[in-house]
């Protein structure tokens, strides 16, 4: 099972980075989502894997529990990256609508002429 999880993390990371290296905003955002999945699984897996041992205390019997801390961390991470994704989607969309161009690269022209221009 560990091999599956590890390889999945690796593949999602690779695909995420590949998409991040594209030149348009949309694939980059998708890449960021993918790499977010990867890191969430990564972080989760740092608690080691366990089957049928959720960290919900059983009052009646002694049962094994999985490590709850990484789960809490991943939850925080998921929420935060959701906020981040929402923001970058919005900025990318606004940038596209303002310039009718969804290239993610800044041209020399952008950086010279428009720097800091007001809306």
């Amino acid at each position, binding site marked *: *099972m*560990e*091999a*599956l*999880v*590890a390889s*999945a*993390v690796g*593949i999602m*990371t*690779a*695909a*995420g980075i*590949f998409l991040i*290296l*594209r030149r348009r*905003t949309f*694939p980059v955002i998708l890449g960021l*989502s*993918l790499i977010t*999945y*990867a890191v*969430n699984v990564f972080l*989760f*897996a*740092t608690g080691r*894997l366990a*089957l049928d041992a*959720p*960290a*919900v*205390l059983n009052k009646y019997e002694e049962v094994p*529990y*999985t*490590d*709850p*801390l990484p*789960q*809490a961390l*991943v*939850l*925080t991470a*998921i*929420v*935060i990256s959701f*906020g*981040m994704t*929402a923001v970058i*989607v*919005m900025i990318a*969309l*606004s940038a*596209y*609508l303002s310039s*009718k161009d969804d*290239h993610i*690269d*800044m041209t020399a022209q952008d*950086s010279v002429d428009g720097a800091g221009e007001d*809306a």
Partner: protein
Amino acid sequence: MSLFLIAALPFLGAVFPALLIRAGRNAAASAAGLTTFLALMGLLIHIPSVMRGDVVTAGFDWIPVLGLNANFMLDGLGFLFALLILGIGLLIILYARFYLSREDPMGQFYTYLLLFQGAMVGIVLSDNILLLLIFWELTSLSSFLLIGYWKHLPEGRQGARMALAVTGGGGLAMIAGMLILGNIVGSYDLSVILQNKELIQASPYYMAALVLILLGCFTKSAQFPFHFWLPHAMAAPTPVSAYLHSATMVKAGLFLMARMWPVLAGTDAWFYIVATTGLVTMLIGACIALFKDDLKALLAFSTVSHLGLVTMLLGFGTKFAAVAAVFHIINHATFKAALFMTAGIVDHEAGTRDVKRLGGLRQLMPITFTIGTIAALSMAGLPPLNGFLSKEMMLEETVHTTWLHSHYLVPGLALLAALFSAAYSFRFVGHVFLGPQRNDYPHHPHDPPVGLWLAPAFLVVLVVLIGLNSAAIVGPLVAVVSSAVIGGEKLPYYSLKLWHGFTPALYMSVVATLGGLFLLALHRRGEQLWNALPRPEAKVIFEAVIGAFTALSRWITDTLHNGVISRYAIILVAFTVGLGYYAYTTGTIGPETREPLPIQIIPFIGWICLVGATLAIMWFHRNRLLSLVLIGVVGLIVSMAFNYLSAPDLALTQISVEVVTMILLLLSLNFLPTDTPWDSSAARRWRDAAISVVAGLGTGALIYALMLRDFAFPTISEFHLANSYKGGGGTNVVNVILVDFRGFDTFGEIIVLGIAALIIFALTEAVLGTNVRSYLLNRKPHWPQSGDSHPLMMVVATRVMMPIALMVGAYIFVRGHNQPGGGFIAGLVVAIAFLMQYMASGYTWAIERQRFYYHGTIGWGVLIAAATGIGAWFNERPFLTSDFGYLHWPPLEEFEWATAILFDTGVFLAVLGAVMLALDSLSRFAWQPGMAQEFPMDINPLRDDSKDEDKKEQA
């Protein structure tokens, strides 16, 4: 007067002219003059002690850690320079009052001038080399302002920049030199350093310190090959040129060489570097000066030459040469300042300072002529003027100097320089004042008002008096200064007399004078030759070099930061992977300590789907909608994996977040292109793929290694498991961690979400406030739209689904503390419930029936969470300390209350508000007039038919 005050007065005074200029030019000038005068008086008070050979000191520890102490000292050398600075400063202030025109901002001028003056005084009074460095760099800065004072002249701008670059750069070198010096000695205090000649000269760092300090001195004093900036600094108003570029700033280098003479001089290195530089500078400066037509340029190069002279003398390293140097500094200051002012007067009155357009001013401007001639003859080295005296001493010393075993080289070249010097001095007199009167002067020249000529006249009187009776007038001063220069040792034998008998120096003087006259006679022919010679124009070269460096910098900068984020990302990834690999290979790792879990078939199928979907995304990423669907698959499987691996909370959160994200992306994809064109080459894609694969391998391997090893120490989560119920009152440990053990993380997290929504809202407002709005109103959809935008079935289904979904949300929320769930997921579920309503009946219809406002929801959420945290304060507990208990109201069963639930309510509200605000904002982009509809569904036979019937009835 305390030395502090002397040094501080000009700076304090600098404030007044700028402020007082509204009160008039005289007020500004008077304020400047008065401060200078006060400082001068303060200095003169110390004459008795200085003349006794005492060193006046004052100081306090400013920055002890650094050894940068505000220590000042006044000895003979400092006194002489301070006297020059303040005395000539006073004259310049007077002169400038009349020189500057009505259009020139005089307040600014005096402010700059006093800043400069203060910096100079600081240099010469510093007893700490770091303090000295501060003043040193300040002179560069203030002179930059002064040179560039006439902002409208391009020459001023370039000159100022060049001066700053050269002297500032030299200053930086000097910083290094001084730090080395201080480190050798162990103190930055001059008084300590000057006691440690042996230590310094024996140090292996002596050479480095020497060269670096000399770089500072040579640049400041315009020594070859750094002489080029000085003539261009002449673009400044004449008072500035007179003050900075003859009397004071350029002498700072000389001052420092003199100051350091006791510890740095006396070595071969010192001799060959300093003396040679001085000699060459003296020669070249004099030669160039002869062929300059601009009076100020002529004087500037003459200054260069004379500075070289003093440098050379200091470089000789003998005590006698040091005395000669001191004496020449005094003399040069007097005649050169007078000459500059004369040149200024000529320029002012005749309207030009081009020698070629002048001549014959003798009768028109008799006073000026007299002043100028006396000063010029002193510069030429004619008796009985003071210039003669020090030149004699110089020539005398050259005769005793051997340069690489050659006895003739130094005297020969010095003589040549003296000859040129005499020639340009005669030219100054001859070509400006003598000769036939002309009728094509730009102005009508006449002697200026007394205010202008008084200052140079005073100086010329000094020139004559010193020449006639130097021993009486400046003898004690020279003695005390020289003594300071040579480090308090016994003075050598010297005499400041006009007549020393028929010495080699006298013969050389005669030759120089006659040769000078001869050269002047040949001037026209010499000029032709000079002009025919290829002369590297320093300014052009400098500008070209700076220009080239600027262009190079621009190229480097723009090439490095070319705005291609994918390259930035590649560098980041490659760097990270590389360092990670390095870190791994330089450590050690033990064998696996955990048994891997067996692979079961369903997870394996999930894995295949995940890998398949991921690879498909890479392959089909240009089809954006498909990629989105595939991302959905990945998210679904990741969520399943969480569930399978005992993380139900994660599964719930992951899937909810994923759906909302997908909806946000769909909302934006409505406006974005639906396809990504190819815009990177196949080679690039392969390179990207290779890097991605390496990074993927790295992360995969890392987590694989981690999962198969146990924690090196017991993990802190054991505490969480043990205390979740008894300390946190919940059985869902993950939730208790979120709302209690690490509630502060969650507090930050909801704020992140709230901020995200705020940003989205703010951006929407910003973008819709521009012409984007009209673009959106006129844009065509990606493809034709279908009819029936709010299908009946969807609306009806939502009427049932939404309440149920809200119920589910409530359920998820309530049970969160003990079972998978919690405020966050509940917030998302409720948001999705409302989203359903939006999708069913449309945004405008739904929002009209909305009963809460998203900003308020977010705000309340954060505030409730914060208030829960603060509530603990009243219980004498830290922020976010939770409490819980159990209630029993018959006939109900016992149930639990917990402040954590209140906190979770905050989370719930913040999440709900944030998600809704984000969706709300994004959907506003698609708003079109006429979109608001009256009914929840487009088709409703019940409604339409009854309407039809009404119509029929009416008909």
